[in-house]
């Protein structure tokens, strides 16, 4: 493997700016790595070779001409989740309904990446329309976890997390509706951040559950995630839910954290996220991480958030309800798949046949569940109650953050499970999101940082911060990352097994 693919994003950008290496060389090294290992990992649905090299060349031209770098990540390659539109390439959302669909516009996130000189290598695999926790719901086949190819890389953003862990890209973009950035980060030993809802534009992000969806950065280090966060975040008039407020100072916070001092920081351990259902190795790694935070000077207290127990059921009413409405747009008329248009079927019949052929089982389940929850007679009992639970969860967060600066928990109750293990049992699959869902319902910031191994598989610690206080989590995560690296013999990601390389 080329040493260039082992570098952090910040190092790559520095070397490119200093002319130690060209952006084209860096990009080619990652394209070569993809060609060598993606047959086994299947992180990518589309590799955008020519345009990636052209984007890298443009960065090199800037450097040669002495023009200032477009951003602190100019020349760094990135893997983009296939739920964000990018002109000139397919955006499939992992669905047959959108197979080969070429969007006529760039997502705001895509535009910002391009403007920052970030080199987009291609589009990553995902659970269909981001519905899932394992990437097994992709219509184009599962992605495999580089730590153990028989295991899932998390989901829905398993392509993005696996691309990082397989050293196919140093940066990736994910989207997190119930944990789809953080849980994949946890099970692949990478960093995944769900920013405060409304701080990263959803324009061009194909909607699953609009009140919960949020794009965010994925990386192998906390600082890299922070640098990417600042590239993609910020107010966007094209997204009416976008918050018009300054981007929280996450890079400065990551650098402050890296000084290794958490004195004066109050950390709350969530009482409800422990006990039955949490693997022993996960609980052990998390407890050790909390002790590490204490050793760094943080004050540790336990905080109860009783409504969090109802977060999972509330989520599986709210998200499917919004999805059933959002996915009505796939009607076979203006774009995407059309089935049965043979002159004999009406438009409604063509719609039904198309949706039956184009959607996978999990998407169909959630559309029907949402349709059920919003039906006359059930609305108050289900959707209405779920909205009340959402209020209670926000109140629990408010009360907790009145006492502590950040909350911590395991990111997900288990390590990466085996491919196929949960596909026949939707509720077992849904429980992977148990700890991540509250922050989607409340809209606050949350991230996952690697916190050790259990039986050779990565464990993640979740750090939750109040809305628009994303920097708090970065500071704690950066301090922890440094201490863990020192205590555990270097970055966790360096212990990922070597993948078999195709020649």
């Amino acid at each position, binding site marked *: 493997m080329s040493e260039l693919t082992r570098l952090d994003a910040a190092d790559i950008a520095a070397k490119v700016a200093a002319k130690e290496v060209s952006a084209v060389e860096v990009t080619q090294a990652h394209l070569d790595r993809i060609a060598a290992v993606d047959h086994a990992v299947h992180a990518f649905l589309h590799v955008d070779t020519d345009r990636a090299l052209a984007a890298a060349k443009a960065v090199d031209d800037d450097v040669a001409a002495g023009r200032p770098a477009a951003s602190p990540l100019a020349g760094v390659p990135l893997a983009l989740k296939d739920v964000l539109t990018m002109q000139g390439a397919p955006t499939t959302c992992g669905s047959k309904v959108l197979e080969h669909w070429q969007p006529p516009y760039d997502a705001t996130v895509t535009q910002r990446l391009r403007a920052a000189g970030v080199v987009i290598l291609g589009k990553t695999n995902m659970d269909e329309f981001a519905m899932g926790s394992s990437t097994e719901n992709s219509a184009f086949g599962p992605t495999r976890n580089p730590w153990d190819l028989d295991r899932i890389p998390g989901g829905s953003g398993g392509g993005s997390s696996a691309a990082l862990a397989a050293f196919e890209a140093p940066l990736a973009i994910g989207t997190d509706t119930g944990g789809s950035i953080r849980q994949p980060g946890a099970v692949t030993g990478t960093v995944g951040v769900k920013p405060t*809802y409304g701080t990263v534009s959803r324009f061009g992000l194909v909607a699953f559950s609009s009140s919960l969806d949020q794009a965010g950065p994925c990386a192998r280090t906390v600082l890299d995630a922070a640098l990417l966060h600042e590239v993609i975040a910020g107010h966007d008039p094209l997204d009416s*839910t976008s918050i018009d407020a300054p981007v929280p100072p996450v890079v400065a916070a990551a650098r402050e954290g890296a000084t290794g001092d958490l004195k004066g920081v109050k950390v709350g351990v969530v009482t409800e996220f422990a006990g039955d259902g949490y693997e022993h190795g996960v609980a052990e790694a998390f407890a050790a991480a909390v002790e590490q935070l204490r050793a760094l000077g943080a004050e540790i207290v336990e905080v109860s958030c009783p409504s969090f127990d109802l977060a999972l059921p509330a989520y599986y009413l709210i998200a499917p309800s919004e999805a059933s409405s959002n996915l*009505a747009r796939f009607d076979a008329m203006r774009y995407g798949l059309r089935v049965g248009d043979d*002159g004999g079927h009406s438009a409604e019949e063509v719609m039904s046949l198309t*949706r039956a052929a184009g959607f996978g089982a999990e998407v*169909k389940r959630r559309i*029907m*569940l949402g349709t059920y929850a919003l039906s006359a007679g059930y609305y108050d009992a*289900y959707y209405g109650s779920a909205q009340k639970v959402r209020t209670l969860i926000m109140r629990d967060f408010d009360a907790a953050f009145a006492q502590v600066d950040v909350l911590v928990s395991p990111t997900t109750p288990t390590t990466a499970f085996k491919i196929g293990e949960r596909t026949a049992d939707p509720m077992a699959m849904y429980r992977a999101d148990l700890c991540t869902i509250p922050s989607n319902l409340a*809209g606050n910031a949350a991230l996952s940082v690697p916190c050790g191994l259990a039986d050779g598989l990565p464990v993640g610690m979740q750090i939750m911060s109040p809305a628009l206080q994303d920097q708090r989590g970065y500071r704690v995560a950066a301090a922890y990352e440094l201490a863990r690296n020192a205590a555990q013999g270097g970055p966790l990601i360096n212990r990922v097994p070597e993948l078999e390389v195709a020649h």
Partner: protein
Amino acid sequence: MPSISRDEVAHLARLARLAVTEAELDLFAGQLDQIVAAVAQVGQVADQDIPPTSHSVPLTNVFRADVVRPGLTQQQATAAAPAVEDGRFRVPRILGEEA
């Protein structure tokens, strides 16, 4: 809480414009029943006087300036359509045979 019958799944599928096979009706009836039984826990707050939250960020009336800005051209808008005729979306007939 009510259980979800096969007939009810068929009704939901019709409402959602999803053609389902007989085998899918059996599969989904069992799975949806299990999921609904689990999510029905939220019913424990149904009687409590709690304001509902539909969105974590309370925003209202987000407007933009009323000025023309570029949109998609006709060619761009129809480029990915499953069927196009004379530069327009071609759709199947909208009425059933009996109409």
